[in-house]
């Protein structure tokens, strides 16, 4: 009996396969045209005509879709969420719900979830969300999207994400409500480098990145190198990466970070250490404290965000993730925000260095002035903070 029904199923499915194959065959005929497969197949428009934004600004619905990982990652996810929260609070709107994908296959679905629920502003965190956000923005040109670390957007003339990376389309006009945030990481890196070279007595300083495959990490450290050399052309810079193979170890494993940092310090005898490694970096700061040397934080003021290491965190190279998100939200509601590349650099106060806090007394009085001068030059656009091959790891010492 069961056997027979199995046979029937077999027949039915064979029929399905045959029809599917013929479908595919038909598809293939038309597929000879380039880029037949729409990379945005899953992204659909919300229901119910054109999206209308609430007139009462406390009624704005803001949602956050993070990158794979956790909300409290001391990184994109956390500060993006904090920024959205701050933006919502400023409006008097409800705290944004946050969706955390469990793996990469959920990224698009999470964004679509907010679209289907008629959210007004959807904030997505991290580079991995870039393609999905671009697609959703393309399908829903009447909803605002803020993509952190996704700029500048690279689109085809149709406004779809450009897999060939030719970037022939103009994102600003094609996707008028997609705000793709990017940061000039080499600028805060440069400032951090100046601090490191000033604070170093031995003339040896270090920088540790999470993984070589992280573009912003590379730019931070490239800036760091130039900044340090500006203060002390003879400075000896050691650069290392926690891992080449494991993203968890690179950004999510403070225990490994602490170990790695300790070994780095004892081997290279540095006395100032800059880390660009997320939560793994927290462990690196711990190692700096344990070794009695200075640590430099990244992204936010880590003397505050990671109090465990505040006693030795002399400053942090900040890119103001939360500020940029909350500012953009305010601008959107106010009607002044534009789509496209949303680049945050010194000119917009999108980057900076953190106060010295408890270590103020140890810092030479002249340093603050030098930093502010450098910041002013950055704003004026007269300071080169990244080598010509910006983002190319080969410029860094091995």
């Amino acid at each position, binding site marked *: 009996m069961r056997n027979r029904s199995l046979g029937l199923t077999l027949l039915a499915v064979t029929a399905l396969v045959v029809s599917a194959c013929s479908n595919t065959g038909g598809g293939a005929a038309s*597929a000879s045209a380039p880029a037949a497969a729409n990379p945005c197949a*899953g992204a659909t428009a919300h229901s119910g005509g054109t999206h209308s934004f609430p007139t009462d600004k406390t009624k704005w619905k803001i949602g956050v879709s993070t990158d794979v990982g956790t909300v409290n990652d001391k990184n994109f996810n956390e500060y993006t969420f904090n920024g959205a929260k701050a933006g919502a609070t400023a409006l008097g709107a409800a705290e944004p719900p946050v969706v955390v994908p469990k793996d*990469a296959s959920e990224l698009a679905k999470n964004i679509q979830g907010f679209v289907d629920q008629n959210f007004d502003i959807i904030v997505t965190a991290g580079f991995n969300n870039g393609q999905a956000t671009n697609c959703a923005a393309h399908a829903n040109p009447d909803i605002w999207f803020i993509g952190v670390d996704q700029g500048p957007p690279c689109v085809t003339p149709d406004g779809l994400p450009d897999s060939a990376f030719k970037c022939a389309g103009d994102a600003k006009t094609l996707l008028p409500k997609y705000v793709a945030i990017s940061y000039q990481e080499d600028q805060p890196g440069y400032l951090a480098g100046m601090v490191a070279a000033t604070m170093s007595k031995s003339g040896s300083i270090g920088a540790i990145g999470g993984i070589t495959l992280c573009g912003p990490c590379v730019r931070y450290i490239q800036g760091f190198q130039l900044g340090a050399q500006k203060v002390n052309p003879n400075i000896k810079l050691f650069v290392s990466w926690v891992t080449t193979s494991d993203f968890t170890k690179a950004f999510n494993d403070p225990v490994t970070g602490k170990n790695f940092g300790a070994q780095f310090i004892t081997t290279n005898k540095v006395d100032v250490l800059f880390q660009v490694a997320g939560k793994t970096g927290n462990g690196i700061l711990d190692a700096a404290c344990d070794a009695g040397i200075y640590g430099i934080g990244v992204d936010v003021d880590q003397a505050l965000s990671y109090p465990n290491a505040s006693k030795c965190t002399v400053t942090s190279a900040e890119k103001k993730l939360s500020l940029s998100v909350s500012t953009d939200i305010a601008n959107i509601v106010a009607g002044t925000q534009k789509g496209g590349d949303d680049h945050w650099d010194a000119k917009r106060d999108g980057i900076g260095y953190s106060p010295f806090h408890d270590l103020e007394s140890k810092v030479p009085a002249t340093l603050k002035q030098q930093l502010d001068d450098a910041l002013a030059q950055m704003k004026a656009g007269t300071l080169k903070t990244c080598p010509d091959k910006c983002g190319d790891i080969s410029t860094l010492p091995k």
Partner: protein
Amino acid sequence: MWSIVALPLISILLALVVGAFVIVASQLVLPGAQLDLLLPVTAYSALLQGAFGNFDAIVGTLASTAPLVLGGLSVGLAFKAGLFNIGARGQFLLGALGAVAAGITLAGSPSIVAIPLALLAGFLGGAAWGFIPGLLKAVAGAHEVVVTIMLNYIADGVITAVVGGPLRQQGRSEAITPDVGNAALPIIIGSTGHAGILLAIIAVVVIGWLLFRTTLGFEIRTVGANPDAARYAGMRPRVVTILTMSLAGGLAGLAGAVVILGVNHLMTPSFGTTAGFDSIAVALLGRTNPLGIVAAALLFGALRSGATLMEILARIPKELIDVLQATILLFLVANPVLQRLFRLRGVKSGLDTTETLTKTYSGEAVVQ
């Protein structure tokens, strides 16, 4: 019929009760949280709505189900041969890698060529990752559980190295592969219903056919149920072990290929998967039977798919799905207790055709 579905159904219902309890209890331990006794209702109705609320939701559930069916078949097939494939995760990743590598190579070729070849590459990638533990088990008695766990970790490293290296798209500061182009699976239902759903159905039929209609399937089942009898009957348990693990790896690899070609279309080094461990739950809940696996995969696919809306509307973290999953398994495994509790007689637990999986942990080679 009741004897087959009673235990899974009771387990699922009890797990939902436990989940509700967790939702309520967690409000008690959180500082400053308000107690909302109806939160479980809100959460579960959002979950249901997210999974089956409308056509798109249902299609989304189907798309989430497809890799779980393939993964469940992988684990289930291995169970049938008395093997515990805890390495579906690594095989999934290698399958995804194989598919993306083939996909970007064939991105400009006609779909009719590119898709089958990319799928085949995915299958082979996973099969290679299943062949290793199968071989080591057969010739040296290395327990497949430990070997596959180790291979899961090695798979992570391989992905990062390859995506960050040879497959990396030039000109971008982040490690990301190009798009698979024409190798992408066509959408056959709604907006997200890729052809992987069809592939999963085909796989169910093929594996069901293989297991119950072919002589090889009979050998696989005999080796799993009674390896001594298999040897007596002139079968070759070693060959069957290697073959089954490779096939199981291939199925998990196909799951990875389906996700890459049907959903993501490209790969980054942080491409991970929940499907690997979900597959174990699917296979166990589905009693290692292909049709049972479809039902179990639908359940977990719906949970995974509906969880997004649960997180948006009820603000319940997705990890609740893991809790539900583990609790279902817990009740299923503790079935002697359930049977006593619910006075179920003659109800079968589902894994009774397979001998204790830890049996060969002591490192004996498969009998010749």
